[in-house]
């Protein structure tokens, strides 16, 4: 009796518990959950995408649960049979992982009205790309009189105690580390020089933010004056009058596509599809491209214009040419170790 009970316990634990409890599917009605990114993306999606989606779908219930891609993946992996998220948003690194681990549903391309209008690089059947992101330097023009021109400027002595970075859980953090490594002779496979450089950056560091959204708010708080930063993360703040500017370093700003995915086993599959359709639609993308969001569109019916054309690139072809695209398959091989190492070593 004791033995069988113990066996039962063991089996239950090994089967269910650790493989993160797929559990029995106690499916229950819940609103559509869209895990967007923190900060400006959440604001943009709350203001534009969600209303557009609800208007088109009879005011369907939905909530935003903003978090980093790596956290989205672990939440879904924890309960793959009954995922707490219906729609995931991923930068290239996590997107590769999510697909490889079978966490995403193939996008029903044949049903989609907008998929065929996307630029070719955005047409990914595992999850189309609704926008591109760019990473360069962000700074406070009130306190930094000469705009920075290079990643190396972050190490300048006058920025002692004024530099912000994020940890490596974000694409911004890892992408920055890789660029720094390359600057000092490293590569996607060897970030050792990058870690050495960040170690030297310590006296300048004022904060290590948990995510790009928080990094942007540190400008709003006057907590930092300069940081590697995401073009979109600062736009809403800038429109509100917070003194913050974006500049591409001379080594080249980083660009990457962000993909949107239906989570496998989502109980709200149909609504998830509808939400993604809304995100790909020319109307939503055109609105998001305008001030204050300035999000790079991927629908070929939306012409890049305004501030984006001025600061980033006048069209997708120029974007692809001008920006640095990193090898995320290579980066993924060691990223988990880097994250752990960074969290252990970088204390300010």
């Amino acid at each position, binding site marked *: 009796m004791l033995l069988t009970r113990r066996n039962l316990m063991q089996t*239950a*634990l090994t089967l*269910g*518990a650790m493989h*993160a*409890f797929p*559990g*029995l599917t*106690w499916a*229950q009605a*819940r*609103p559509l*959950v869209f*895990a967007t990114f*923190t*900060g*400006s993306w*959440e*604001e943009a999606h*709350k203001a534009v995408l969600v209303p557009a989606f609800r208007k088109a779908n009879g005011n369907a219930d939905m*909530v*935003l*649960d*903003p978090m980093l891609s790596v956290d989205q993946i672990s*939440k879904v992996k*924890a*309960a793959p049979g*009954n995922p*707490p*998220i219906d729609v995931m948003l991923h930068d290239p690194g996590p997107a590769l992982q999510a697909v490889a681990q079978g966490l995403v549903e193939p996008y029903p391309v044949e049903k989609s009205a907008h998929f065929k209008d996307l630029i070719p690089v955005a047409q990914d059947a595992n999850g189309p790309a609704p926008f591109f992101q760019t990473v360069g330097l962000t700074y406070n023009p009130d306190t930094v009189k000469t705009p920075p021109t290079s990643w190396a400027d972050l190490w300048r002595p006058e920025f002692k105690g004024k530099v912000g970075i994020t940890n490596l859980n974000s694409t911004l953090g890892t992408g920055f580390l890789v660029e720094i490594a390359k600057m000092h002779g490293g590569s996607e496979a060897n970030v050792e020089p990058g870690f050495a450089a960040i170690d030297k950056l310590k006296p300048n560091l004022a904060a290590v933010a*948990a*995510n790009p*959204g*928080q990094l*942007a*708010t540190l400008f*709003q*708080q*006057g907590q930092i004056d300069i940081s590697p930063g995401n073009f979109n993360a600062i736009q809403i*703040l800038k429109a*509100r*009058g*917070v003194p913050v500017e974006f500049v591409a370093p001379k080594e080249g700003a980083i660009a990457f596509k962000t993909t949107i995915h239906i989570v496998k086993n989502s109980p709200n599959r149909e609504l998830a599809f509808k939400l993604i359709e809304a995100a790909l639609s020319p109307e939503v993308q055109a609105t998001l491209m305008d001030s204050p969001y300035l999000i790079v569109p991927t629908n070929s019916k939306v012409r890049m214009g305004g501030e984006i054309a001025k600061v980033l690139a006048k069209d997708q072809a120029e974007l692809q040419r001008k920006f640095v695209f990193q090898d995320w398959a290579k980066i993924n091989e060691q990223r988990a170790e880097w994250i752990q190492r960074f969290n252990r070593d970088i204390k300010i």
Partner: protein
Amino acid sequence: MARRRDLDQISFSVTMAGLALASLVLLAAPTVVVLVVSFTSGFSLRFPPPGYSLRWYAELLDAWQLHFAAMNSVSVALWSTGLSVVLGVAAALGIARSPKLSARVLDSLFLSPLVLPALAFGLSALMFFSLLGFPVSRTTLIIGHTVVCVPFVVRNTVAALAQLNPTLLEASASLGASRLYTFRRVTLPLIRPGIVAGGFIAFMASFDNVPVSLFLRDAATDMLPIRMWQDLEGKLDVTIAALSGVLIVLTVALMLVVERVAGLSKRLT
């Protein structure tokens, strides 16, 4: 000699009163700061604010994600307070005057969530429900909250029962009243303030709970403190200052009512 005594007294009183006043300022300052900042006209949490306006309170009216989380939090807090009062008062009656060792053991058990790290309990509850195949939901949140809130009800009810004069109960019984009648007409009215105070603290503890909600919530059962924390971490939203202002006013109002009804401050010391 007298001069030395004076010096001694003055130095002592000035030191103690000075430190006390400094601490009182320290205790009150954050609340005042939040209230002032919530009326800022600007976008940053600068103090003093560059100007004053009600714009963030107006923003609050449209903040549907916060409304959603607030409704969930209130509903979970009401359910867990109700459950805590029913289970906790019954348990307090059972153990309060019992001379048995098992009663004292149960007493320590029921109060243990007060000192144990609730985060560890939250994690264990998540593992437990996952193992049983229950996804997190409002029900799991209510159960988790009840575990960490019931001690407040038990503690306050036991304290109220301890102050109850047993002769009153004996008198009621000797006059022929049934146990139930005595309970309803004598015991309950006398311990009611204790129950109210305990229930109030339980409600606040649930409404403000982070460590248990952290593991047992998801986006569909969002809880207000978690939403606020994530909004603060993610975008330092000034709307949160306005929400804080509303919460502070509601808390003070509720606190004054409970102080009137149940003498809250006497029960906490």
